[in-house]
């Protein structure tokens, strides 16, 4: 009875982890598109000219987005590795491995949430700055 409950829990946990991983992957893929779009936007002439330090500010934001893109790729790789190991090894249902996967899942969840926070913070900064200096063409 206990064994089957344990096994059932493992299966549920496994499904739950895989679902969470899939969600991270989807989000990161979308964020990658967003970064690409924002960098494109920053490099075009859609802002009022003659704004003091405009070019420097836009360059700074572009660089921050580039750094964020690198972080996104690294996080994606970590998640991909975790997912591969998870699928490959968890079938064996070894107690030690399970605890390691739980630890990694927890750490990645933390990393992912921190990344999301950083991403939102940077985007908000960009919206606040550029939203006020968009070239008015009407």
């Amino acid at each position, binding site marked *: 009875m206990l064994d089957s409950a344990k096994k059932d829990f493992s299966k549920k946990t496994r499904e739950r982890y895989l*679902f969470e991983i899939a969600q991270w992957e989807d989000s990161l893929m979308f964020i990658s598109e967003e970064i690409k779009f924002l960098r494109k936007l920053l490099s075009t002439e859609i802002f009022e000219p003659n704004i003091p330090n405009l070019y420097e500010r836009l360059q700074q934001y572009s660089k921050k987005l580039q750094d964020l893109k690198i972080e996104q790729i690294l996080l994606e790789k970590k998640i991909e590795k975790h997912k591969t190991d998870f699928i490959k090894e968890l079938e064996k249902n070894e107690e030690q491995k399970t605890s390691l996967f739980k630890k990694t899942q927890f750490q990645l969840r933390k990393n992912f949430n921190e990344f999301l926070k950083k991403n939102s913070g940077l985007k908000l900064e960009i919206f606040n700055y550029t*939203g006020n200096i968009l070239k008015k*063409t009407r």
Partner: protein
Amino acid sequence: METTGQNYKYVEWKSAEEMHFSSNQWISELKFIKDEHQFFEDMLKEYTLPIIESHLLSKVKDLIGRLTKYKQKTETLLNKISEHRNGLQVMVDGINQLEDENRYKQEHRKLLIDVNQFSLEYNDLKKEIFETVSQALKQQKQKRLLN
């Protein structure tokens, strides 16, 4: 997004703490979306010349209309989640109220579905905005190169 629609059963195992965390996360995401809406709306409304020149005006009008609808939806969802978060007491008061607790979990599950659906649709709209603006910028660049 393939992941949506298959995981709502996991609400059953969520602890009160986890539900509280999710509610806070949804609220923070939706508040961010409100700022984002404003930026996209300003961008589409104010930067009109390249859009007119690229003959994307009707598309842009449609996008602005949809953004406005999403603004309202965001507000409604935010209010629902805030109310839900405030009702968490039933889960943590130490009194065994199985019926109320189940109702709370059902409400959480319903909100999870709503938030996921909202995110899906909103991300699709954002993708359309990216594509449309990119197209206008590209055409503007080509035009400048030709002149």
